[in-house]
């Protein structure tokens, strides 16, 4: 397993840092060079992540392309990266969204206005590095390092290039997420020191073998508290109702690319963390808490949809729709069936694509009209037919129209939660209601912007889409349709890993054979 050379994962992880270093030496004034260096870095990273996908063995549930270096051996902490069915597609999503984000900021108004262009792209690349790190790292401490490092560039992106109330939003974002994650630090320090190692696969193996155990007797015993320590951090990131209040602020105030990355990747770090760490490390606690969490998720689905419908601010509307969509993902995870978890993984990708697309569209409208008020628009289809057509696809994808990607994710999640042994059927029913609500608020969004009469004078002469705007929207539309029509290539890679994961968490409900030693009892 361990190879002596550089693993492809390591290369993908550190490429953004290479671009970061090159960028450092480009003078501030050379705007063109700065932009294209950043874009080039992200595109090369994306290409390499595709190579990684091509070399990925979908049938193997274990970690692949593993690389381990010592870092603090005496504490059992080491650099340990690898990909499996859970994180491979997340890495590709990250590199994809980052390329989109960087390309979309090329003629962003706010950067010209506030300046410091180089700093902006430096933060983008730093953010990319940290996000890839969060997904590929298999060591708790290093994971935490990357997890916290994502905070810093995002804080600056919101704080420097954000909207009117950017300082408030940035500080709120920082404190909120830090409050959650620092409790996770305690929990993971406890887990690591008890286990003697911080390498996640080893900890999970130890838990499976029964050599490491965190007792669970009752809802607030050791394992539960550890579980909650991790869960709260992830829940804030996702965000799960009622911990979502930072999200609308951050989303609304962030610059367009910031919102796209926030929705497209950063939120997924939370749901990914649940699958990667919560379920296998604390299986009993996960099962015990599943109904409560699923309840919160369902509340989030309905609440997000409801509030979204009431918004008059485009960005807020999309932000609350995120709360609703992420509720689906959490529900799928805590259904604890392989279908549900696979649905969650593909839904993470879908949400990244469609919500990212929505934020891009909102951003483009904002660039042209300098307002986010829904009432300021109407009949835009007539002024910008291309944007209208693209938006229609994205909106339909976001509301879960069959034939587009959103449907695949939501459908599999509902299927998975229906077959769940830990959740009742009620959750599925209410969640399905969320899909109907989604149709209402998304169509409302589309109708009020693009349909109707082009009756406002300012809207009549909106500039056409720039080349880079088209270049970021087209891949999104293509992917939305592609995943919708042919989801198999996107779902298959996670098959084997999810199967074995579910077997570890709820051994008695799966058909996988190697159960006797997997069960560990109380």
């Amino acid at each position, binding site marked *: 397993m361990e190879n002596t050379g550089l693993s492809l994962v390591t290369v993908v992880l550190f490429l953004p840092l290479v671009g970061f270093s090159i960028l450092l030496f480009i003078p501030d004034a050379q705007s063109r060079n700065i932009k294209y260096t950043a874009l080039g870095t992200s595109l090369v990273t994306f290409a390499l992540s595709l190579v990684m996908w091509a070399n990925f063995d979908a049938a193997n549930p274990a970690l692949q392309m593993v690389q381990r270096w*010592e*870092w*603090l*051996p*005496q*504490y059992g902490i080491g650099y340990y990266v690898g990909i499996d069915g859970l994180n491979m597609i997340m890495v590709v999503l990250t590199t994809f969204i980052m390329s989109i984000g960087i390309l979309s900021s090329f003629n962003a108004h706010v950067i010209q206005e506030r300046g*410091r262009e180089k*700093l902006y792209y430096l933060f983008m690349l730093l953010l990319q590095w940290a996000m890839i790190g969060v997904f590929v790292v298999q060591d708790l*401490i290093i994971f*935490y*390092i*990357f997890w*916290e*490092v994502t*905070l*810093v560039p995002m*804080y*600056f992106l919101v*704080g*420097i290039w954000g909207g009117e109330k*950017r*300082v408030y939003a*940035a*500080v709120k974002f*920082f*404190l909120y997420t*830090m*409050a959650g994650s*620092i*409790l996770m*630090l*305690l929990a993971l*320090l*406890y887990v*690591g*020191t008890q286990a003697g190692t911080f390498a996640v696969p080893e900890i999970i193996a130890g838990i499976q073998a029964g050599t490491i155990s965190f007792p669970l007797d009752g809802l607030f015993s050791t394992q539960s508290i550890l579980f909650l320590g991790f869960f709260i951090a992830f829940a804030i990131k996702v965000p799960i109702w009622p911990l979502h209040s930072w999200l609308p602020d951050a989303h609304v105030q962030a610059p367009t690319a910031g919102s796209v990355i926030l929705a497209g990747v950063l939120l997924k770090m939370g749901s990914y963390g649940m699958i990667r760490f919560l379920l296998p490390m604390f299986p009993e606690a996960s099962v015990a808490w599943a109904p409560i969490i699923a309840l919160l998720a369902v509340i989030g689905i309905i609440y997000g949809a409801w509030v979204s419908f009431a918004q008059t601010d485009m960005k807020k509307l999309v932000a609350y729709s995120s709360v609703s969509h992420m509720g689906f993902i959490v529900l799928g995870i805590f259904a604890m069936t392989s279908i549900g978890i696979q649905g969650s993984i593909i839904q993470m990708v879908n949400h990244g694509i469609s919500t990212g697309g929505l934020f891009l569209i909102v951003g483009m409208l904002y660039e042209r009209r300098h307002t986010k008020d829904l009432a300021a628009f109407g009949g835009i289809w007539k002024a910008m037919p291309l944007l209208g057509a693209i938006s229609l696809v994205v909106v339909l994808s976001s509301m879960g129209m069959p034939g587009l990607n959103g449907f695949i994710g939501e459908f599999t999640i509902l299927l998975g939660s229906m077959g769940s042994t830990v959740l009742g059927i009620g959750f599925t029913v209410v969640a399905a209601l969320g899909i109907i609500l989604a149709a209402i608020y998304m169509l409302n969004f589309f109708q009020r912007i693009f349909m109707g009469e082009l009756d406002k004078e300012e809207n009549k002469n909106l500039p056409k889409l720039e080349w880079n705007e088209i270049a970021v929207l087209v891949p999104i539309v293509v992917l939305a349709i592609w995943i919708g029509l042919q989801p198999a290539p996107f779902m298959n890679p996670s098959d084997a890993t999810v199967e074995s994961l579910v077997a570890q968490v709820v051994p008695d409900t799966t058909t996988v054979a190697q159960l006797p030693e997997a069960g560990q009892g109380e």
Partner: protein
Amino acid sequence: MLQLPSLETLNMGAALPAISIAAWACILLLIDLWIPKDRKILTVYLAAGNLVFAFIANLLVFNQSGDSFMGMYVADQFSGVMNLIIIGTALLSIVLSFDYLKRVGIERGEYYVLVLFVTAGAMFMAAANDLILIFVALELLSIPLYVLSAFRAPDIRSEEAGMKYFLLGAFASAFLVFGGAMVYGATGTTNLNEIAASAGMIIASNSSTSLFLLLGAALLLVGLGFKVAAVPFHEWTPDVYEGAPTPVTAFMSVAAKLGGFGSLLRILVVGMSAVTMTAGEPAVWQNVVAILAGLTMIVGNIVALSQANIKRMLAYSSIANAGYILMAVAAAGSPGLANEATRGALVYMLAYMFTNMGAFAVVIAVERANGGADLEHFVGLGKARPMLAIMMVVFMMSLTGIPLTGGFIGKALVFATTLNAGLVWLAIIGVLTSVVSAYYYVRVIVNMFLRDAEASTEEATPGYSTGVQWVAAVALGGTVLLGVLPTLITVLTDRVSLVASITP
């Protein structure tokens, strides 16, 4: 009959780094008299050269444990690491001071001599294995600091700082002496190893003697608590830190803490770890120290929230940081954890040293350019002097405990050992107050980057002098290096073993 020691039994070679600094400070005091006023840079070189010499000497003897002065001074890996940190602090602060002293017109050679004395005092404290030497070293550390605080003498705030520090410091010393006397009364010795040997029996006997011992330990804790600015013995800190010349504040916020914690760890771990009610349980002082740590973190961080002056903010932050180190001290009370906790505390102190010196370097640069160190003076720094501002961001992040900085490594190790000691409540207080601290650290960043400068940036006053620039750069390098490659220091701290010297 009196046993007369010979020079060999004194074994002064083991204490060479500390002795060389103390001796050279005396000589430099004389040399400086004949250095003309416009060539005081020579004194700086002479002082710095001595520090570099001591640094190297300390590295050379790092692996050789030994004791000098008949067991009063122990040169082991603990004092080795402490010495490295202390000398590093002194070096950075000397470089930091030169321009500042020149600018405010208090350029006097005594300054550097006093810094050397403090350095020697801190080094003696970290290595002292005897209550008497601890007291003497404490005085050697404190008295020059009183003078340094008042060094900007006609300035009324500086005078107030010196006076306040002197009066409260004298109180603290009295507590320490009284505590030492009580411990001596209970055990009949001032040597920490011998105290350790008899302490367990005395506590087990549960007689009035054990009361003396406990009271003595408590008073020692009070005395050193003053020095490290632990709540509730912290009241002097903000006024002194704000009033003292800024490089002095930088220096004393680190050096006094290092000395204080060096002695505290030695007294508690070497001398008092056997002070348990029943064998195998945590030492009786663990809960007391833990409560102090909790209070210190809570009060330090919460009061820091409302500070508008960065120097004052950093003063409260230094109180809070004392709380985090105290956490490790408390954890050292659990059987078998002493070494792990000590190592955690050492890494934390090193990280704090770099971070704090760096932050103060930036404060000095801003004071010089913008005429003050209020939060308002940092507005727009990100535009006016981006390098400086980015450095400050790193230091603030390190103080918050964000990864890739030394502050994170220190905090992670300290939290881990606290959890291992079973002090979960304390660790939770620690992380929650870290979040509180994030607010006021981030506020500095907000002012530097997120609030556009309303005015005063175009003037572009000469940024910062070479010395300050160097210190900030070195501190930045240290902070980041420690965060990215902590092995560099854990290689040294792993050899630290405080308990091993317990056999008398």
